[in-house]
């Protein structure tokens, strides 16, 4: 089989188009900032951005003007404050409007589950007594055909493209992830196109040695990008720690549109690729992970 390995530039150019519904998933862990930055550099427009937690990566993309709409369930800077580009847009203080479609985490997870299963909806017991269905008419009800009970229902989310960061994959995109799994698998299966970005490209034999570790099969992957440190300032278990100082500093950076744009000019537009970003960020070596390697298991028979 021919290799799917391409540069980030080529992957974004080929698979992310203006107007697309784009998912860069990863719950705290493995958020692919490298892809977000490349989308900003290539000046994509009118994207519908979906993520449980927009996080800094979508705050940057909103400020950069990539987003027409945001689909989400928690839009804060985890442990550190607000996403101010998001807030400016939603509070009517920004340069351009931002449409929002809002769920809870469970609702977003359920949307990805429906998408991955190619069902039009997913049932869940949720939202009674909340104002969320009032704010979002796509939160509906379905009656159980056995008990008559009325449950909540959310529609499938089937993105045009999902970008998943993983610790490692082979050249066909068979990707292995450990640590927090988020909704990476569901988002990838729900998507029309899938880009897998990895810290490390490994031989197929590494994947085949531990098949229970594989989260995303190559057969659903369109492109593989090898991008060490690609998840910074989020983290990759076993590779590097979360850059908490960056998250804390974001509160002040993003609160001031001029500073935020200066940041984008320097760290996104001002670099050609991730390698330059890492160099400009001082190498990031202080974040490199300690060794805490688990034992293997026997696949013999």
């Amino acid at each position, binding site marked *: 089989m021919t290799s799917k390995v391409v540069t980030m530039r080529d992957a974004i150019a080929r698979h992310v188009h203006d107007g697309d519904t784009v998912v860069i998933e990863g719950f705290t862990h493995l958020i692919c900032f490298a892809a977000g930055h490349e989308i900003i550099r290539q000046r994509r427009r009118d994207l519908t951005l979906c993520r*449980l937690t927009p996080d800094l990566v979508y705050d940057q993309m909103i400020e950069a003007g990539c987003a027409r709409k945001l689909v989400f369930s928690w839009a804060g800077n985890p*442990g550190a404050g607000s996403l101010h580009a998001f807030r400016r847009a939603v509070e009517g203080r920004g340069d351009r409007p931002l449409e929002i479609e809002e769920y*809870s985490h469970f609702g977003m997870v359920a949307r990805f589950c429906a998408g991955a299963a190619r069902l039009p909806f997913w049932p869940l*017991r949720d939202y*009674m007594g909340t*104002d969320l269905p009032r*704010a979002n008419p796509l939160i509906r009800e379905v009656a159980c055909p056995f008990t008559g009970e009325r449950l909540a229902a959310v529609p499938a989310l089937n993105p045009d493209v999902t970008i998943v960061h993983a610790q490692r994959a082979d050249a066909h995109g068979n990707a292995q992830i450990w640590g927090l*799994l988020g909704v990476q698998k569901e988002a990838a299966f729900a998507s029309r196109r899938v880009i897998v970005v990895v810290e490390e490209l490994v031989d197929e034999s590494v994947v085949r040695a531990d098949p229970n570790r594989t989260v995303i099969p190559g057969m659903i992957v369109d492109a593989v990008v090898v991008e060490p440190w690609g998840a910074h300032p989020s983290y990759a278990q076993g590779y590097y720690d979360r850059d908490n100082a960056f998250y804390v500093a974001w509160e002040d950076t993003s609160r001031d549109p001029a500073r935020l744009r200066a940041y984008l000019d320097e760290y996104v537009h001002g670099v050609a690729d991730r390698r330059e970003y890492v160099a400009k960020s001082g190498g990031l070596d202080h974040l490199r992970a300690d060794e805490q390697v688990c034992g293997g298991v026997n696949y013999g028979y």
Partner: protein
Amino acid sequence: MGTSRTDGRPDRQTDSPAHTESGRPGVRPSDRPEYSPTEMMAAVAARELRDGEVVFVGIGLPNLACNLARATHAPNLVLIYESGAVGAVPERLPVSIGDPALVTGSLMVASMADIFQSFLQNGRIEVGFLGGAQVDRYGNINTTVIGSYERPKVRLPGSGGAAEIAIHARRTLIISRLGLRAFPERVDFITSPGHVARGGSRRELGMPGAGPVKVITDKAILEADPDGELALAALYPGVTTDEVRAGVGWPLRVRDALRCVEPPDAGSLRLLREVLDPDGLYLRG
């Protein structure tokens, strides 16, 4: 749940050991070590957790409370984070709900689909922690918007997992500092339902969990009366009923059997300050 009184004075009997929150003998104000309201909130929340329970943990004070409980009376508490870490034993203070320290050495990593479906919706979570910008008379919480949804004055982060924790956890604990902006009579938006939401009571609306059993503030503990309205149930040492009333945007009921909450003991304070949050990241508030 007991009745409420309105004279604003704690019941005299609350000094007796049987009525202190921890069940241990009461400590006179003059004996107690110095502590901050934040430390008090963490200690009070920790006491609410029983050994062996399964707790859905948040970052900040809930995390401190859970780890304080683990280090003291509840060594077998099972900590679950919405990010997927089950049985976490963080070796450092987690600064995000998906901190890598929650994974390393945990019992299990579950996908978020499993966390919400097989753990939470399944009814396996005994205690959930909630907080938010606004908590109202019935324990409803708003973490979505100040002002109208369409044209918000302040856009808050939104639900995250809070709506479903509020609905499914067998009981919830709300942690919030008193204040008129934080405790309005009616929240601007119900993100996480308490006892009486628009449309009916929890039972009428089919919510599996019991809802907020306690609201742990910086001055007192509020509990829901049978009709779902929050009432002042216990005062922290040195706090008067009027001080609590001043921090709540509705005419607050006061229980007849008003309890007096014991302050944190020296051991808990040492754990909080020296082990759990040595940099004062969350305790400094």
